[in-house]
């Protein structure tokens, strides 16, 4: 909402400076976004007189002017056709920055003639698009006077943001009222004078849609003269960002910004019979003042005559009945439209207008009957004519609101003591009528223009913002006497630990969008309709992601394209299986792509494989406290993994805590990312809660001082026997003394029976009370061999 300082002062008698006014506006909740003073940019421009204008010796279109520039005579080469001796124009001396061209003037020779300065057009000063000639000022303009001053442009423009609740401040009058209440001056309340009609209105109004338009006041004004608005009106409209059209239209726009009261004027000669306010008929057409055709659906409130719809109520008028320079008789509309219907219609047809903006926030219902009077007054004043009597269809809704008000609530809710009298003063100045009921209780009648107020908290807010939020003393929150307790949930602690854990093993945390390309989501088990966005920002972000991995793979691809050779990424965040509350799961996912590191003199890099993914998955599970030792490895990773190079980590056969492996080459090809990519997903929600409580003592450690013994065995087993199975068989051979087993060699090929492999394992034997004898070691070795042979069907390799 933009308006000028002088406009504000028409409603506010004040001695306050511009800075005081803008500070106070922000302090009362009318946030100042900018203050621009057009006089600033126009400072160097002043009035000068052309003494002589001779043809340029070397150019037909140019003139050489001798200019009286305030006591100094200068020579200016000018291209304007209207430059002539004796005219007063706007002069810019050498050194002036010309806003319209962006050039700073220099003394220059133009076709061999010296030019010192410039006579300006309106476009060169960015006042309008006018560039047919230089500005031709009235003959009595004083030479040397600043142009901004004589043109009335020394009027700062204030731009404020109005929150949706303050529809009353979508007019300068409402803004002035807030400032007056805040002590910045006195509100100049406009007196609304009743204008006697000199004749009955030849146009009548009927309302068929009272829900959409409860009341409509109209007036016929005959014999008006339309044309350009007076300068002051044009200036104010331009300052507000509006384009002056004609005085009749400009008056309605001006009052919209002055009183937050939209109007419409119809060229009465173009009306076909009486006006009916009704719901649109389905399929009915309307050409609006924006020049566009609309086909109506039947949900809109229209203003109609016998020809059909001539306007969308509260939003925009129709082209057929618009005012033009030829308009002689007008019908003025001042009506009330339902906010919800206005919003729906405006949104349905995509029409933004100042009227819609106000009606959807709510226009003061009382302004229907006063508005028709001040609207008429302004038309009569600026366009002449004779007003008819006022036609009123429907009735102003009687929804006078009252709110109980306890002055003690200002301190109770606001935390600041405002004397009762001051609270009452503020509310009164804002237009509330207060009636004391008993000590500490008033009934406040809410002014008709305050659509937002419906409770005591609203009154407290009004008092606080006018009194000043800065006067509310800061109060520390009551603090517990003890050390603050931990506040993270288990999942939050886990996410945190996982993030730190993965970052510490070389993965970089990313955060990617929760939505992704539906076509790709399908490859990751997603893309179902329930998770599809109805209004995505682009087709590449149109479904909720079923897995974090596609985003990570795409990110890896982008980084690889930028030349990154070694890529490690992870994200801890949601993936989505359906749109229900528990359809969102917390997942830690990561990948490694490219090579393991830079080329190195001692550690040559390699590509990533399944075991990198397995290591990362186990590190993740370890970080979040999963019982890693009890996990089992199964096949059955989702089908975006390489079927032969992936697995799942499970707690029991059913609870899948993680999947890991190399990404399926087909997927990588579709995503255009070079493989191999080793990835993992850990489903953090499925990791069981830790047993036991925090701060519990731990059992004594199982530490033996006796040296352990390591024995190596090689087994020839069937190729399909998993190494994990061999190790498990070795470990279970003797639960007391066999404490660990690991694979140190894997051999397949010549010398071995077809379809078999050799696995060499190292088994750790730990004595308990005394060192092993050779016989004991021998017996344990035999147990290991027979356990492995029995469980895996393998043979000790001798």
């Amino acid at each position, binding site marked *: 909402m933009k308006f000028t300082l002088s406009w504000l002062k028409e409603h506010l008698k004040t001695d306050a400076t511009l800075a005081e006014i803008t500070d106070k506006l922000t302090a009362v909740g009318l946030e100042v976004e900018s203050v621009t003073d057009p006089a600033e940019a126009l400072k160097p421009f002043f009035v000068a007189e052309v003494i002589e204008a001779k043809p340029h010796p070397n150019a037909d279109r140019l003139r050489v002017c001798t200019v009286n520039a305030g006591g100094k005579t200068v020579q200016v080469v000018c291209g304007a056709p209207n430059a002539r001796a004796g005219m007063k124009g706007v002069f810019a001396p050498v050194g002036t920055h010309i806003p319209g061209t962006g050039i700073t003037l220099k003394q220059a020779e133009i076709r061999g003639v010296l030019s010192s300065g410039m006579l300006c057009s309106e476009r060169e000063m960015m006042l309008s698009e006018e560039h047919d000639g230089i500005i031709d000022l009235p003959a009595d303009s004083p030479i040397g006077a600043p142009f901004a001053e004589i043109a009335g442009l020394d009027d700062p423009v204030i731009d404020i943001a109005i929150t949706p609740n303050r529809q009353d401040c979508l007019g300068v009058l409402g803004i002035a009222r807030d400032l007056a209440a805040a002590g910045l001056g006195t509100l100049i309340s406009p007196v609304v004078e009743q204008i006697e009609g000199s004749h009955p209105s030849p146009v009548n109004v009927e309302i068929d849609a009272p829900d959409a338009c409860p009341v409509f006041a109209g007036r016929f004004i005959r014999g008006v003269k339309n044309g350009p608005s007076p300068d002051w009106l044009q200036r104010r409209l331009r300052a507000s960002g509006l384009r002056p059209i004609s005085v009749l239209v400009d008056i309605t726009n001006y009052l919209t910004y002055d009183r937050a009261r939209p109007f419409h004027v119809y060229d009465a000669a173009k009306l076909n019979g009486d006006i009916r306010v009704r719901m649109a008929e389905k399929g009915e057409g309307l050409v609006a003042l924006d020049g566009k055709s609309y086909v109506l659906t039947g949900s809109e409130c229209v203003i109609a005559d016998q020809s059909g719809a001539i306007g969308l109520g509260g939003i925009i008028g129709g082209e057929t009945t618009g005012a033009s320079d030829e308009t002689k008789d007008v019908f003025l509309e001042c009506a009330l439209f339902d906010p919800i219907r206005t919003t729906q219609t405006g949104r349905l047809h995509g029409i933004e207008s100042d009227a819609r903006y106000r009606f959807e926030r709510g226009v003061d219902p009382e302004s229907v009957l006063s508005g028709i009077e001040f609207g008429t007054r302004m038309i009569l004043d600026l366009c002449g004519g004779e007003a008819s009597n006022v036609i009123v269809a429907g009735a102003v809704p009687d929804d006078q609101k009252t709110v109980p008000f306890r002055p003690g609530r200002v301190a109770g809710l606001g935390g600041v003591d405002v004397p009762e009298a001051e609270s009452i003063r503020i509310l009164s100045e804002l237009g509330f009528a207060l009636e004391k009921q008993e000590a500490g209780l008033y009934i406040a009648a809410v002014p008709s223009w305050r659509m937002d107020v419906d409770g005591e908290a609203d009154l407290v807010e009004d008092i606080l913002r006018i009194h000043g939020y800065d006067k509310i003393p800061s109060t520390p929150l009551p603090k517990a006497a003890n050390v603050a307790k931990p506040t993270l949930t288990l999942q939050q602690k886990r996410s945190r630990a996982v993030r730190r854990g993965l970052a510490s093993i070389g993965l970089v945390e990313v955060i990617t969008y*929760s939505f992704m390309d539906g076509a790709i989501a399908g490859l990751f088990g997603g893309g179902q309709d329930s998770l*599809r966005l109805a209004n995505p920002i682009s087709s590449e972000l149109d479904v909720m992601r079923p897995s974090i991995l596609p985003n990570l793979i795409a990110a890896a691809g*982008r980084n690889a394209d930028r030349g990154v050779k070694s890529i490690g990424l992870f994200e801890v965040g949601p993936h989505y299986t359906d749109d229900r509350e528990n359809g969102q799961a917390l997942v830690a996912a990561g990948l490694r792509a490219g090579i393991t*590191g830079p080329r190195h003199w001692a550690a040559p890099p390699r590509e990533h494989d399944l075991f990198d993914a397995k290591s990362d998955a186990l590190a993740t599970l370890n970080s979040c406290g999963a019982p890693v030792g009890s996990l089992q490895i199964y096949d059955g990773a989702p089908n975006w993994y390489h079927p032969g190079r992936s697995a799942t980590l499970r707690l029991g056969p059913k609870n899948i805590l993680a999947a890991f492996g190399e990404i399926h080459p087909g997927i990588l090809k579709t995503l255009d990312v070079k493989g191999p990519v080793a990835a993992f997903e850990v489903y953090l929600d499925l990791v069981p809660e830790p047993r036991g409580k925090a701060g519990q003592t731990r059992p004594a450690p199982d530490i033996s001082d006796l040296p352990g013994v390591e024995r190596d065995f090689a087994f020839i087993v069937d190729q399909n026997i998993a190494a994990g199975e061999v190790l498990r068989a070795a470990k279970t051979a003797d639960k007391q003394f066999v404490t660990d087993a690991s694979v140190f060699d894997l051999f397949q090929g010549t010398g071995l029976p077809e379809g078999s492999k050799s696995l060499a394992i190292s088994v750790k034997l730990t004595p308990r009370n005394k060192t092993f004898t050779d016989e004991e070691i021998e017996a344990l070795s035999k147990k290991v061999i027979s356990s492995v042979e029995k469980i895996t069907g393998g043979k000790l390799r001798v």
Partner: protein
Amino acid sequence: MEQISDLQKNLLNDVESADTLEALEALRISVLGKKGQITGLLKTLGSMTPEQRKESGPLLNQLKNRIIDAVTVKKDTLEKAGLDARLKKERVDATLPVRPQTQGTIHPVSQVMDELAEIFADLGFAIAEGPDIENNFHNFTALNIPEEHPARQMHDTFYLAEKEESARKVLRTHTSPVQIRTMINQKPPIRIVAPGRTYRSDSDATHTPMFHQVEGLVLDRDIHMGHLKGCLEAFVTAFFEIDHVKMRFRPSYFPFTEPSAELDIGCHFDGDTLRIGEGDDWLEILGCGMVHPKVIANCGIDPDEYQGFAFGCGIDRLAMLKYGMTDLRAFFESDLRWLRHYGFAALDIPTLAGGLSR
């Protein structure tokens, strides 16, 4: 006698001239081993008369000890020389690069979330969460944002595909629905913060379709706006880690708070760098207010008995202000160059004892 002294002389010579550890060991075995020269001589003692033995015994033992000492000394010398030679040979170029070991980083949003968790834990706030996919009740209706209210349009809501059997779901446009969930499920007193992902259909340098917010809610019998100011001033000062931050509470409007405010912090530009805390410019950092009585009532709590405040703040924006990023879009582009530049080390864990940032 003469013989022994000659022998000693010769043997000491031999020891001295041994030039490798292997030669010395061979010599030792040939002299002191089981079949060695001196061992042999000592064996002859058994066949001597007591007088002869009395004379030769000490001499032979003395000879043996002399030679043992000499071998030990020589061995030491040779070993030392050998070590010196080995060390010389083993010299490597220490300027060669170490074996590669990449360090990962923590995303600035996670880091700031951890910072917030620290600060609000100290202020006694628990952390609450809610789903990203919300229904209209939690995201709008319960928050006093009716269907056709202009505020609902202001949210640029993402809707999920319309379903016949149930009302249309939305991606939450703010973290405020967590307020509702908390008030419905928990009895006052309540003190929570709720960080999380939020979504609005918007995209430019300072808006992305997904961003992060943190919501705060305090509900009790006597909480007033002074507490709101005190709490947020404490938070802002702690977060920016400067002693004095110029702050301004400005009246504003949110459907779910009454009175409502926005908090601006003072700032100025030092060249191209934004300095937080002092200066003549203002930066809006969060919205807040006293929870609207209707919102409290919508959650089944009596607004005449309980009141409190709520606030909501953009986490990404906080990160940008504190750590100097200028383009929000880069937060979600996964560019390793950006992530390594603005990311945090794994062990750079914010704590109150150690300070939020290193």
